[in-house]
């Protein structure tokens, strides 16, 4: 196996003395799709925040694609190839769906200021390219008809999908999905599962998925990590995890 895409060593994060995450480690190969589960407050979202530079690690090291990103800023991490979605959906609410995607696309390939101010030919080319790529992405996620719509007026399910579109627009190698199925009905969740599988399969993305919906997690993930009280308590295939007594204890609160 080649060099792993993501290596996380001994990661810890504390907020004012409260350990939200400790002794976390992960080796993630290219094109893997793993799930992270755990009860509320187990440190799953903290993990994503640390990985994306939103909440810098208190200790530990993160190497992504051969590059140490432990201290990098969120925008640099994004450009390095990690994209994420948020548990409670963060869109640029008052901008159009198209603009939302364009902002993601701008992570790679922005104009230079003089091109913009002087409206040099490069600007028009770039803008055209951005728009075309954005429309393609929206097409792929079945959002094309909403291109001109203000983002926060989309129905909830579509907002989730738009967020994934924006994340994809940044051309990630690694996609972090934070409870993408939250608040979805079974049909929507099913569609989401197919989408995730497609992204993983057709677009060769590496994915980490946080999800409470076990059907989704067990359905798509190759490997699952279980967090509890900020610690990694189990790791393995979906089948192994389902049998793991520590996991059952964490979820049900009783020793199995």
């Amino acid at each position, binding site marked *: 196996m080649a060099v792993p895409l993501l290596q996380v060593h001994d990661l810890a994060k504390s*907020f004012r003395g409260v350990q939200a995450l400790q002794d976390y480690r992960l080796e993630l190969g290219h094109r893997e799709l793993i799930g992270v589960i755990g009860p509320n407050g187990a440190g799953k979202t903290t993990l994503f925040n640390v990985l994306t530079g*939103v909440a810098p690690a208190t200790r530990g090291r993160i190497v992504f694609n051969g590059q140490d990103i432990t201290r990098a800023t969120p925008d640099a991490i994004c450009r390095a190839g990690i994209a994420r979605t948020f*548990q409670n959906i963060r869109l640029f609410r008052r901008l159009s769906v198209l603009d939302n995607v364009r902002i993601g696309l701008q992570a790679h390939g922005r104009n230079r200021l003089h091109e913009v101010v002087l409206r040099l030919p490069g600007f028009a080319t770039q803008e055209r390219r951005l728009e075309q790529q954005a429309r393609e992405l929206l097409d792929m996620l079945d959002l094309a008809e909403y291109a001109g719509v203000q983002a926060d007026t989309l129905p909830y399910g579509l907002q989730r999908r738009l967020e994934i579109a924006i994340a994809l627009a940044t051309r990630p190698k690694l996609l972090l999905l934070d409870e993408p199925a939250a608040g979805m009905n079974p049909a929507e969740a099913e569609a989401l599962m197919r989408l995730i599988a497609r992204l993983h399969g057709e677009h060769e993305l590496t994915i980490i998925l946080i999800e409470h919906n076990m059907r989704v997690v067990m359905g798509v993930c190759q490997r699952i990590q279980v967090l509890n009280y900020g610690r990694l308590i189990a790791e393995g295939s979906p089948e192994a995890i389902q049998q793991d007594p520590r996991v059952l204890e964490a979820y049900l609160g009783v020793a199995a």
Partner: protein
Amino acid sequence: MLTPSYVAQQVINALNIGSIYALVAIGLTVVYGILRLINFAHGDMMTVGAYVALAALTALAMPAVAALLIAMLVVSALGIVIERLAYRPLRGAPEVAMLITSLAISSLIQNGATMTLTAQPRPVRLPAELTQRISALGLSFAVMDVIIIALAIALMVALTLFVQRTTLGIAMRACSENVRVTQLMGIDVNRVIAVAFAISAGLAAAAGVLWTGKFGIVDPFTGFLPGLKAFVAAVIGGIGNIPGAMLGGYLLGFAEVFFVAFMPPEVSGYRDAFVFVLLLIVLLVRPSGLLGAREVNRA
């Protein structure tokens, strides 16, 4: 020049001016905490308070204490009215919208006072027993100076107790944490906000009376500058935080007085710049003010 009594005198001076800044800053911060409104008309409430007290003192020949109370009451009522008319309809609107209405209110008060009362500065004469001077240990200060410090501290203590012990005060703190959740808990947020405005305006009025009583003069623009400075003080302390505003007010008072007191006159012209550079340094080290809660980014 740096004799102990000189330093002590300057400390008294700084405490005096700092107390007033602190009072004004607290009023500003109480409202800010709940509404996230920088009330640029706050300083003008000082002006109104001073005029009311002046009228009570001269036209109605009231004792000073009664004039102070009347001023606080009238201005508190005015605060509630302004909140009802100019801020409540903007609940949920962008923050800048309220900021602009507060600028408009400030302009209304200043120009209204100029039109009706003329811009001629009016003397504010307090009873002699208040202006009487005490000299002790080489220090010199007026009874008024002691009263300013004492009254400011008393009002601050009262406010702190109110906020920590009473139901309404606790509701106020809850509102500054999260208005929506507080509302869901069945608390009448409108009432809480009205009370906050009343307190804020009342404190401003008290500060206005102290300020004009100390300096003996009031005109339609009296409160504007101290109001602006109090805003700065509140921010240094961490806006929205009551002890922070207090701390900020005293810090500002000390910074202003000490810079003039201990710097040669050639550089004391840079006082205001110095105060702001100090402020910038404080903010750069602690971007949410000295006692302000760091806003945690929650993803």
